[in-house]
């Protein structure tokens, strides 16, 4: 389906809220999804995959914990939105970090990009290099789960900055119908079913519209 970025962001936000994410975090999920889609990357597909495997799971289980050495610890795969928001809140990366296990690692890109203009992410199957608004990809970065994802600040030379493959393009974007329907199903959970009372009073009608 051909969609505006605004539609993507609104739908992704509602879908994340529908899957149990608090609204503040859901807004970040919506924003990150739209940033990836604008670059031609499958943000909506990855978000849907993330929401399906983490549906209504407590955020504390999906958030990292830290050892006394500062290392990231996890009891299972972490949520890239929670991790990304934390990296952003901390104002970026001073030193490399390794996430032991992570859902849909590509969803981290917008957060790393916003907090750390030059950075690299890698795991066994993929390398991602970030230079401001541009992104270079190698391997298979669209995986829905990865282990030992390393994120580090880097200094890029001219050769490295010449190979970027993705940056924001003018909308609209094309999202596979089944992905859009999947997100819609999650978003639908945030709507309140209509009753006769809400139809009449909720929107404040009841007076005739004609004159």
């Amino acid at each position, binding site marked *: 389906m051909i969609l505006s970025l605004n539609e993507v962001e609104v739908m992704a936000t509602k879908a994340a809220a529908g899957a149990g994410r608090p609204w503040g975090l859901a*807004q970040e999920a919506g924003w990150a999804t739209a940033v990836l889609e604008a670059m031609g990357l499958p943000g909506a597909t990855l978000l849907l995959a993330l929401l399906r495997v983490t549906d209504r799971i407590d955020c504390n289980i999906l958030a990292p914990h830290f050892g006394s050495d500062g290392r990231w610890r996890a009891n299972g795969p972490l949520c890239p939105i929670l991790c990304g928001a934390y990296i952003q*809140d901390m104002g970026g990366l001073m030193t490399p970090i390794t996430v032991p296990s992570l859902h849909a690692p590509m969803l981290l890109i917008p957060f790393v990009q916003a907090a750390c203009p030059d950075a690299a992410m890698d795991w066994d199957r993929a390398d991602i290099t970030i230079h401001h608004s541009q992104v270079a990809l190698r391997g298979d970065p669209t995986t829905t789960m990865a282990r030992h994802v390393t994120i580090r600040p880097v200094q890029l030379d001219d050769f490295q900055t010449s190979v970027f493959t993705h940056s924001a393009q003018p909308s609209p974007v094309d999202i596979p119908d089944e992905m859009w329907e999947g997100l819609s199903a999650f978003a639908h959970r945030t709507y309140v079913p209509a009753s006769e009372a*809400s139809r009449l009073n*909720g929107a404040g*009608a009841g007076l005739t519209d004609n004159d």
Partner: protein
Amino acid sequence: MADVRHNRPDQNRVQELMRPADQVMRLARMGASHQTRLSFMRAILRRVKSEGWQVERTVWNVDDKGVGVGVYEARGPERTYSLIAYANDLPPEKRSDRVIATEWDASFALFDGVPTEADIERLRNNVPKQEAGRCSASELVLSRANRSVRLFDHVVDRLAAGQQPDRAELDKVGYLMRTTAVYGNGKFGLSDRAKYAARAEAGGPFRVELLAVWLIRAFTVDVVEHMAWVKGGDKAVRMDKALRRRLGVGNSTGLGMAPFLVNHPALLNAWITARETALARVRALPSAAVATIARFEELVARAHAGLERWHTPDERQARRVCELAGDFGKLKVQAKTGVLQQADPWNSLYLWAQANLTLEGVEAVVSLIIEPHSELVDDLAGQMAADETEIFLIDGRMSVGGLAAQAREQFKWAMDTDFASHDETARFWYVSEEKLEPRLGERHEEDGAELEQRLGIGRDVKALVEGLESVPGNMLVAEFLLAHPQHRLAARRVQLASSLPYTEIHDNVLSATMMPIDMLRCKLAFFGASRFDPKSDRWVRITMYSDAPFPDEIAGMDADDWAWPPLDMAVSPA
């Protein structure tokens, strides 16, 4: 006009005179907002005039039943925008302003450029369906309108018989058609705002939406004249231009617009900051020129006389209009006391108004004293946009104690509100499953409160502060939010409010006494709307562009002197 070369306000004085958010951002005052010369409709027509835009109706294929299509090309110096209007023959039983309607008297798209035949055909299958159709990135705005049957039929009958419509009938309604939605920014497949945000003519807030409305106004007259011609043939006449100018475009605005102000804090801040800066600049002027005073007195007289055309059956608003008439009477007397001939003229008058007039009156004075100072304030109309594509980053390196202190400082009103009480949480905002319409529910009586939208920012900030107080004060906000992500929204709003003064409504939008129309009126006044006519506590009728020039006359007229009707056209109130 003020001679700004010799009468410049002192910058420090301007800062001192900015009204605090605690005063400006209260719902009662927001609900008394009036249009100003910074309002978006005003800014659009100033540009259309100064840049010499040409508007031409290039297509008119409307049949004897009033069904068909018209295209209006608005050609600016760099680009053309085209209104494509689809006229419909709507059975009366289908006419409804509610978002749940499925058919309208007319539907519209604003096209980016000049549409081809193929574009017009593609949109013919989508635009009349509104929410159920799809637009493309070539379209910037989607809208629809219903007739005021009473006035429309009257005007058709009169023109068909070779007569002009009755002026009193015309003034009673004020418009031939009212829009029931004007969509932009990517809705239903329309172009994202980002595509045109950098354009001089389209980057300001709601510029493309309100350009479309101005063109729709021309269409409403064309279609009524067309129907008169069908009915009367050679006997039919066109509408007298002075009479025609009294017509605006009506609009019904419901609850859907209220969450906008809460969900766009940076944009709201930009709007309020511009208006408050304009007011402070004028108040900071050390003296007033004779011509400026004369202009001001003329405007007050026009505003007073123009109340005759502010009709509303709503008791509360009718009383307020009546009080406003009394306020204008007092203002005329006060302006003659010599206050404007002394030092500190506008500030003295404003302070007098603040002490002696109703809220409606004070906010009308704000608009009226800004008005004669175009050179001093018009630059501010270009500073009312906000880039909302970037997310506002939370500074998580701040301490929890620091954030709590900011929250207590910025949300004093919320700290003093008892959100455990029945009345302070009486309402909840939600999106209905049916047509995805925003609605307001009674929390203690209806189901669905667990699905409420997060509009009660004050309540959330108070909960955030309680959360922050439960952990060590030197903890980092980032650590706190990782463990308590439910507070991210409130934390972001607190930090935003600390850097931008007017982001938040300083009232509880969940309260039993909250009036949604206060939020609607604030937004609509920034659009440039007038004659607010509340139909309940949650929807309001307005008119847009009343008394403004039409496209075919703007080149030969003042494009910026229509906010208050000229004296010779209004009837003095008894």
